[in-house]
């Protein structure tokens, strides 16, 4: 599904990312961990063609992301608050994103209904602009908007940060569900080793821009990761 080859990103003289080869099959829930500056957000930004690769390329579903725009129709993402439009209400934002992805209001409402629990009655029908919501609630809106329109690839950067415990647990089951039952390729990054081992089938550890571990998740993975980061 997503093939990365010879990808590097340099700023000035310093190399911040270097991935010789990485293959993410369809329907995999893929986790990216690493300390600050390891290159997680850089990789996601390259996947979304928000920055230009220094060398190499990413191929998503047969589309090279830096040369064609066709990947946009099956990819959705939430990286940070700059993905929100502050002067819209949550509903308007969902409908806007829905319309861009070819979904009418009824389709969007159907999706939103599934997330009624997740929203905890703080998002919909409140007649508030997104800019007036709290950080956590803004994040919820961003994450749900990324799930509208049956995307085949979903990219979430640090989805668990800023969320309350209840929502974190709900989010985990949502991510598992879309990867397992709907065959969606989910890419997430996190600093929370417990959550990410819970959710992801595969975990890649980045350090200084390079892949240093590539693990199938099993019962030992959490311990292995903890041991790795303790040193």
């Amino acid at each position, binding site marked *: 599904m997503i093939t990365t080859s010879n990808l590097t990103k340099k700023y000035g003289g310093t190399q911040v990312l270097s991935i010789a080869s990485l293959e993410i099959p369809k329907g995999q829930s893929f986790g990216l961990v690493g300390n600050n500056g390891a290159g997680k957000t850089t990789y996601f930004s390259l996947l*979304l063609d928000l920055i*230009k690769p220094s060398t190499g390329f990413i191929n998503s579903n047969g589309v090279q992301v830096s040369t064609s725009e066709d990947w946009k129709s099956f990819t959705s993402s939430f990286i940070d608050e700059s*993905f929100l439009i502050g002067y819209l209400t949550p509903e308007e934002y969902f409908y806007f994103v829905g319309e861009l992805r070819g979904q009418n209001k009824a389709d969007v409402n159907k999706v939103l209904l599934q997330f009624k629990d997740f929203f905890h009655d703080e998002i919909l029908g409140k007649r508030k602009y997104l800019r007036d919501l709290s950080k956590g609630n803004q994040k919820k809106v961003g994450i749900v908007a990324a799930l509208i329109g049956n995307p085949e690839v979903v990219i979430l950067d640090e989805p668990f940060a800023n969320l309350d415990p209840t929502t974190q647990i709900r989010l985990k089951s949502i991510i598992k569900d879309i990867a397992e039952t709907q065959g969606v390729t989910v890419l997430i990054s996190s600093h929370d080793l417990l959550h990410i081992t819970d959710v992801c089938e595969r975990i890649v550890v980045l350090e200084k821009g390079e892949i240093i571990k590539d693990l199938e998740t099993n019962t030992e993975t959490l311990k292995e990761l903890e041991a790795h980061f303790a040193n």
Partner: protein
Amino acid sequence: MLKLFLGLEWKSFFRSASFGKTLGLKIIMGFFALYFIVMFLSLGISAFFILKETYPNQEPLFVVNSYLFYWFLGDLVVRFFFQKLPVMSVKPLLTLPIKRHKIVNYVLWKSTVAFFNFLPLFAVIPFGLTLIFNGYPAGNVIIWMLALLLLTLIVNFLNFIIESLSAQSELSALPIVVICSVLFGLDYFQILSISNLFGRAFYAIYESPIFIVVPILVLGVLYRINFKMLCQKLFLDSGLKTRVEEVKSSNLEWTNYFGDMAPFMQLDLKLIWRNKRTKSSVWMLVLGLFYGLFFYTNEKYINAPWMYIFIGVFSTGSFLINFGQFIPAWDSTYYKLLMSQNIKYEKYLKSKFTLMALSVIILFVLGIPYVYFGWKILLAHFASAIYNIGVNTHVMLYGGSYNRKKIDLNQKAAFNYQGTGAMQWLIGIPLLVVPMVVFGLLYYFLNFEYACAIIAGLGVVGIVLHDKLLGIITSKYLKSKYEMIHAFEQDN
């Protein structure tokens, strides 16, 4: 402490992403400043002799004093629009061991080091020196000069009070305009001769320097008020507890007529209605629409048909100019979303184009009553409307691909130069100057009708080539995509 604050500002200026462009703007401003300095300096040097000649029976000092009230009003209005309280990003400092009053005092003191406060000195000092050379008592003149400096500072701090009080309202310029017109009116119609009062007060200070304590006291009080107001704003919760706006939704179904551009047009309309800065630029539309009245009621301009095209382009294109110059910076806060969503750049640009073209048509229709001043005006406006649609929209979109400055939508609009770079000045050339020159030449060598026809013809060519032009513009945007994303992430 002072050194620390100054160091921070130095860094924020030189390390900002748009540094090169700010510098360009600063240089232009520098030239303006130089121009005013020279003007004031020559005024200050020559005033004594000019006044001696025009009012041979009166003391020049007395005459100057009687005009001080107008100076005060003018200064206040000009400052309201052009001078802002120095901005300092204060949030990171609040948790550090710095006393709040130190931050406030620093900001207020810094505001006194403004160009507006130095400018009058260029006139006052040479004038005062000529007085002393002409035998006026030096001590008294110096006190009088000091009084004028105090007056300048009073205006300085009064302005900040007025600004912060009126910043909340939408038509923020209304209070100051009303107050100043009322004061001026009272004086002009001799109901209350404030200018006389002002003059006598300053003469009193000149004659008995003890009265200098009055302006000093006034200044002290104003400083204190400013200090209190700023201190209140310095708490984080005034930032956190901002008034939550109730949503006003309106029916935008009619945009569905435009098919797949509809979501973008709805977004743009909401953008315009729901943000302070864009909303107040709607008022500029009204101004633009009535712009022609200033000219067409004037004998001098009604007989100069080459002016028609300028007014035509300006009044039918006032939305185009206001809105268009900041494409795509209006969307800068969520630009990453637009770049990763399922959007074709071309559609995004086309919706902006449609919105601008629609506005031109609407403004032209609203401007039809100008036919009262002659059918030629209507014809010229029609030609310029077509030129606006065919040429200027594309020019605006093309210019937008050079935009590298983020816009914070929540700030007030009138005379807000955030997001303004050299491009906004340069774009004025093809926008206004080219049609004027072309029209002027054609009018001179051929006649009015041909000139109109050719201006309109240029517009038609633009409309015919629309798809092709949009393609070129789109590829230009695609080329600068990464740069724009990077620049819009920067706060300065």
